């Protein structure tokens, strides 16, 4: 926003005033519409400089009144402050103080003083141009200069100095709005003193053509022959247009360029200066000398440039006469252009010039981006629309010369087209280049910039494919309701399976992984399926061909509107190379962080001990008519790995010992005690004693362990022949029986936890099992929650597990996956299924 305010700053405003207050038959309607006072001027003596002056005074006093009425002249004071800031090179606060002090010294109100300041600034702007006349004619002040095209009017003002008369003539010339008159005035009043004999004012067409808008000093016939120069015909004037800089030619003959009056003054010097305002070239001022022209001093060059700017003000509103048979100059509204842009299927931007405080073209504002617009840097359309071109695309000023091309098109009106232009966009300070076909054209005061990025969609798709191939990424999607699984080709390759084979469901992932990675995979599935959060896991994929690859799987859940888990999708990446790098790095880090390493080693040792005694995936126990499955999940925090244990073993008497226990505490001590208890129980069980007796003995064992260890356990002896389980518990959760769709815990028989007292007795119970019955023993890591009782947690767990899975193994996996425990604890699970 701040930049658009700039265009309303005093200098620019005054500048517009100078160019607009030009009532006349050929003045564009825009002028009248924009500037109300100009219309009022018609009623006065429109051609009169006094009238113009009066109008200015009138306008300013009306502005003063309006501003007073509105905001106590705050706006004007702000304007004046702005001028002071620029003039004095001070800050706004200082300018405000300065204004107040000066007003006090002058004994006028600050508002009046502010108006004075603005007036001063406005006059200066006008003088800037007229100074050129004054300097140029200083030597010939005695000559008759009052015979301008508006001679009588000039005479009215003529009471004063030559400067005032010159200025009046200039005003008159401007007011005439007739380029021919301007040409006459320029030649007579400004150029003859410099030794020039003829002048031509060319208007540039939007297509690059040149039209002779006015001339003086050339014969009428010659001027008529040169009334129109088509595009692409190189003439002196055209050089001035394309080079966008003044062309100072010593002798026309040397250049070989054609131009108006070449036969008349073949060896004469020529000057062609682009006539532009605000970065836009409206035409060319061409001046002819009769003889070769020596290099001119800088002040003359400046004077000529000032004259060219004067011409530009006239040309700005120049409308070629219809009689010349040329198409009318079309000035489409920016809105029309935006509509046009929206109709294009290529990305298009509508640019409008952005002038700096001095009225020079500084940049282009991106007025509009169309619907097809895709930012090469990936920014949303709203961010790009409204920004300045160089702000949004700083690299446009770089090698691609895009900005320079836009500037040229805007200046000359010549369209610019280029194929396969290299565009560079900065994305987070990283230059990204794209090849694009570019088209730039000017329409009225706006520029349409179209680019077509080379086959964007196709290129992205192929890029993605290559990226997947290079990254060894395989994608998948799994519908949990229908069981439908989709794999991409890369994933089959990654798994080492033929494309025609059946994809592996996520739940069966562990079966294709190294047994030691089962825990990581279990955690991954639990996060993904139970917590319904994105999850990732690294594991060793064991392919059917015997090759082991390190693979990372990343997946996210997709919920339907009822918040049900609908689809899981994700990707596998082969990270084998990366893995070994990490291993090497880890080894280095280990050496550096020795102390920390020791702690980690301790935790790892505990885990290894656990694994050594209870492999996470144990060889199943072969008992006829009975499925036995066991699971051990260590705490996620390695330091919390502790004393959970299980056992399932066939005894010599044909009974199956089933046991789950938990030694209080964590770490290596708890794990050591666990080993003692587990081995003791195995040994004691061989005696053939019942579960209550076994626990009594085990209590003695625990009680005599050093360090006041306590433990809980549940112990059962299953008789395959009778399908009965005789069991006892020592402070442990009773087993759970799953029969048909029902699940519930067995009764809470009496039994003190192990080690608390020297001697304890344990109540026994017996349960008769039937075919398809499942019995579960577990440690509290599975269900422990602070906000509800164990029964509630258990009921929740058993009911949320989806319809009974076909195998006991899957059942246990699901229990681990969907467990709602909120404490990070070890978990042991032993299950048997009859039949």
């Amino acid at each position, binding site marked *: 926003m701040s930049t658009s305010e700039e265009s309303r700053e005093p200098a620019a405003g005054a500048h517009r005033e100078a160019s607009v207050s030009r009532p006349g038959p050929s003045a564009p309607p825009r002028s009248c519409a924009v500037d109300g006072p100009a219309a009022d001027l018609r009623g006065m003596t429109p051609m009169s400089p006094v009238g113009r002056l009066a109008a200015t005074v009138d306008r300013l006093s009306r502005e003063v009144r309006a501003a007073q009425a509105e905001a106590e002249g705050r706006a004007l004071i702000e304007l004046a402050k702005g001028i002071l800031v620029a003039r004095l090179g001070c800050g706004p606060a200082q300018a405000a103080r300065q204004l107040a002090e000066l007003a006090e010294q002058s004994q006028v109100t600050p508002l009046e003083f502010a108006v004075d300041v603005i007036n001063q600034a406005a006059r200066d702007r006008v003088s800037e141009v007229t100074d050129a006349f004054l300097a140029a004619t200083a030597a010939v002040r005695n000559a008759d200069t009052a015979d301008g095209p508006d001679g009588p009017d000039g005479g009215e003002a003529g009471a004063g100095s030559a400067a005032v008369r010159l200025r009046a003539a200039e005003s008159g010339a401007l007011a005439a709005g007739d380029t021919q008159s301007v040409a006459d005035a320029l030649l007579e009043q400004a150029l003859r003193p410099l030794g020039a004999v003829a002048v031509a004012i060319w208007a540039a067409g939007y297509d690059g053509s040149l039209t002779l808008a006015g001339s003086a000093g050339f014969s009428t016939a010659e001027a008529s022959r040169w009334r129109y120069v088509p595009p692409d015909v190189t003439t002196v004037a055209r050089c001035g247009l394309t080079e966008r800089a003044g062309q100072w030619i010593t002798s026309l003959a040397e250049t070989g360029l054609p131009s108006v009056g070449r036969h008349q003054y073949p060896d004469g010097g020529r000057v062609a200066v682009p006539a532009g305002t605000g970065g836009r070239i409206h035409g060319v001022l061409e001046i002819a000398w009769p003889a070769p022209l020596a290099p001119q001093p800088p002040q003359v060059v400046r004077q000529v440039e000032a004259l060219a700017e004067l011409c530009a003000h006239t040309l700005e509103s120049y409308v070629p006469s219809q009689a010349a048979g040329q198409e009318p100059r079309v000035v489409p509204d920016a809105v029309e252009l935006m509509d046009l842009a929206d109709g294009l299927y290529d990305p298009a931007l509508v640019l409008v010039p952005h002038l700096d405080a001095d009225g020079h073209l500084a940049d282009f504002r991106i007025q509009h981006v169309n619907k097809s617009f895709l930012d090469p840097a990936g920014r949303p359309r709203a961010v790009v629309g409204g920004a300045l071109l160089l702000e949004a695309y700083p690299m446009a000023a770089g090698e691609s010369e895009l900005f320079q091309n836009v500037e040229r098109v805007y200046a000359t009106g010549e369209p610019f087209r280029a194929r396969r232009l290299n565009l560079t966009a900065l994305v987070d300070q990283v230059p990204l280049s794209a090849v694009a076909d570019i088209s730039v054209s000017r329409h009225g005061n706006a520029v349409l910039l179209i680019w077509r990025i080379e086959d964007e969609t196709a290129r992205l798709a192929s890029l993605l494919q290559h990226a997947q191939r290079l990254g060894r990424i395989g994608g998948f999607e799994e519908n949990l309701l229908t069981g439908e699984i989709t794999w991409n080709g890369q994933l089959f390759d990654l798994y080492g399976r033929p494309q025609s084979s059946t994809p592996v469901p996520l739940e069966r992932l562990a079966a294709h992984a190294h047994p030691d990675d089962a825990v990581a995979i279990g955690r991954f599935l639990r996060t993904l399926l139970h917590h319904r959060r994105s999850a990732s896991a690294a594991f060793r994929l064991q392919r059917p061909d015997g090759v082991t690859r390190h693979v990372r799987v990343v997946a996210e859940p997709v919920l339907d509107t009822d918040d049900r888990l609908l689809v899981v999708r994700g990707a596998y990446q082969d990270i084998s190379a990366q893995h070994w790098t990490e291993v090497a790095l880890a080894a280095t880090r280990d050496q550096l962080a020795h102390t920390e390493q020791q702690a980690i080693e301790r935790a790892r040792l505990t885990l290894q001990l656990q694994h050594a005694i209870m492999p996470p995936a144990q060889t199943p126990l072969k008992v006829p008519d009975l499925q036995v499955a066991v699971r051990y999940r260590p705490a996620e925090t390695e330091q919390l790995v502790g004393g959970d244990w299980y056992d399932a073993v066939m005894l010599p008497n044909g009974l199956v010992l089933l046991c789950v226990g*938990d030694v209080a505490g964590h770490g290596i001590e708890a794990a050591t005690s666990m080993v003692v208890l587990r081995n003791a129980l195995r040994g004691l069980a061989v005696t053939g004693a019942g579960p209550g007796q076994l626990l009594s003995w085990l209590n003695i064992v625990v009680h005599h362990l050093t360090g*006041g260890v*306590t433990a809980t356990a549940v112990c059962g002896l299953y008789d395959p022949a009778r399908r009965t389980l005789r069991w006892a518990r020592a*402070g442990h959760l009773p087993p759970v029986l799953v029969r048909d769709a029902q699940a519930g815990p067995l009764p*809470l028989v*009496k039994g*003190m936890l192990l080690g608390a007292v020297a001697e304890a007795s344990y109540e026994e119970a017996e349960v008769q099992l039937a075919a398809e019955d499942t019995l579960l023993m577990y440690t509290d890591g599975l269900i*422990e929650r602070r906000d509800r*009782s*164990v029964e509630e947690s258990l009921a929740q767990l058993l009911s949320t597990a989806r319809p009974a899975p076909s195998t006991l193994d899957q059942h246990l996996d699901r229990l681990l996956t969907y467990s709602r425990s909120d404490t990070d604890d070890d978990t042991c699970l032993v299950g048997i299924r009859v039949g």
Partner: protein
Amino acid sequence: MPIAQNPLSVEVTLEREEVALLKVAGYLDVDTATEFQHHLANQLHHGRRHFLLDLSEVPFMDSSGMNIILRVYQEARELPGSVHIISPTAAVRRVLDLTGVSITVPVSESVEEALSRIDAQPEGPQVPGA
């Protein structure tokens, strides 16, 4: 739960010279058990033999809390002395039953009930005039 959110509060009063009443409020778990143990050790150090643990404001107790109770039970038994649990919440009561601790450590509904149990013990303190 982080300690900051659920700090354990232990309020100690002396019912009699050798009888300490500890009113516990908050979760008794792995995070807070050590603090609880310090209070108990301090009372043991000052010669208390009987410990009344009011757990009416303990919504949750895990095995760590349980072990502290068992430890003070074992210590007190040596003195000889005793440990009494007073009006536990349902969840805590459940844990006490599950672990069988309630078989060994008596559970009372009030301080008075616990005190009368202490009095009934043969090796209980001699109360003058009783």
